[in-house]
């Protein structure tokens, strides 16, 4: 699947203020072009904002300097050669805006102002590249560590039967947090290195089981995912009211959900059917209508699972 790259995303997450150069070398309109040349050379920069009485009045670049040099006008002042009223960017805008500005205006740098319009820094294409690389490096490192820690758990911790058990309390009628437990199970499986197909099946089964607890139970229940190297099992256990006829409950479209829940798009009577499609094994028990236990098993390793 063609996906948006992390860099494209970062361009919108990173703020200009995070990548810009903060210690800006500035000049005034009365600085001579000869002095400007020295300033650019000394600080190894290619341009500078022009400030007068604390206000940004223009911008001058090495291109302006070269033109002045060619015209023999090194005695001129920055005020005469600068670009007045320069286009500025704001420190709290995403870096993506700066990328667009560089493409649109063709300038080599933009002064950056804070929300009061005061000069806060300066940004070049180099600053953007450096900022993105730095952020990517940090993230890569963090994810690498996280992934390593998690994916090696079954190799690093040795027992005859190691399993990782994730328990989630699910409250009845709590539609605001619906789907959170299954989202967390999904993330855990991805980090453990499960294939996207397995993650999808487990996520659907966990979601439907979680929704059943939210929609149908008296006092909520527990969603438990047990991850073993060869299989994932998901159990949903509650304390009632139970299912009088489990066979009937398994029929596609059979639902006991009240009208208001159906209006939200839940309770279509497809939950257990969906779970069954995702499961390699499925057991639904509700003895005497007191409690319900649903167990779903998804095999990771066909051979072990079929034993």
């Amino acid at each position, binding site marked *: *699947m*063609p*996906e*948006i790259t992390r860099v*494209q*995303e970062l*361009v*919108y*997450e990173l703020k200009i203020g995070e990548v810009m150069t903060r210690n800006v070398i500035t000049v005034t309109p009365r600085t001579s072009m000869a002095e400007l040349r020295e300033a650019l050379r000394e600080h190894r920069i290619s341009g500078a904002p022009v400030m007068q009485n604390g206000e940004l009045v223009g911008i001058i670049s090495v291109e302006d300097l070269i033109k002045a040099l060619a015209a023999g006008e090194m005695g001129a002042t920055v005020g005469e050669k600068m670009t007045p009223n320069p286009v500025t960017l704001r420190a709290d805008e*995403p870096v*993506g805006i700066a990328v667009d500005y560089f493409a649109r205006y063709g300038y080599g740098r933009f002064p950056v102002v804070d929300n009061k319009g005061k000069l806060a820094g300066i940004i070049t294409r180099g600053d953007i590249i450096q900022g993105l690389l730095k952020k990517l490096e940090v993230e890569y490192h963090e994810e690498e560590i996280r992934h390593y820690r998690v994916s090696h758990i079954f190799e690093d911790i040795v027992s005859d039967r190691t399993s990782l058990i994730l328990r989630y309390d699910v409250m009845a009628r709590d*539609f*605001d947090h*619906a*789907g*959170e437990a*299954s*989202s967390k199970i*999904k993330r855990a499986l991805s980090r453990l290195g499960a294939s*996207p197909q397995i993650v*999808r099946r487990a*996520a*659907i089964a966990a*979601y*439907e089981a979680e*929704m059943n607890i939210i929609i149908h139970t008296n006092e909520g229940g527990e969603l438990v995912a047990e991850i073993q190297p060869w299989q994932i099992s998901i159990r949903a256990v509650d304390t009632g009211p139970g299912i009088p006829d489990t066979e009937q409950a398994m029929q596609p479209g059979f639902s006991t959900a009240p009208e208001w829940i159906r209006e*939200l*798009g*839940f309770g*279509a*009577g*497809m*939950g257990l*059917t*969906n779970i069954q*499609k995702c499961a390699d094994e499925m057991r639904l028990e509700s003895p005497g209508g007191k409690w319900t236990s649903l167990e779903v098993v998804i095999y990771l390793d066909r051979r072990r699972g079929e034993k």
Partner: protein
Amino acid sequence: MTLEELCCQLSLEVRTAARKLRMEVTGGYAADLLSCVMAKAQAGNVWVTLQGHPNIVAVASLLNLAGIIITEGMAPDPATLEKAEEQGIPILTTPLTTFTVVGKLSALGIKGVDQ
């Protein structure tokens, strides 16, 4: 076709996760029953629905959908927008009906999961 292009073509209003609009759309699915969406919609699909409560975000996130189009001028709950922004799920709104939106998506070459 990306979500961004769909937004332009259908004049959709972008309500959340503007940074995720360059995602390529792999197909489309329309339904208001969440279990149907869970069963059928595929990763990268755009989902067209009338529902605006927060659970649509959980569904879209669990399935890695490209985004959600909410039709008929239905206003998504503030909690929905908050969650969608947090989880990076684009929510797009339109006054058009689901039928019209799906027709337009089809005309643009967005295919259903059974095609």
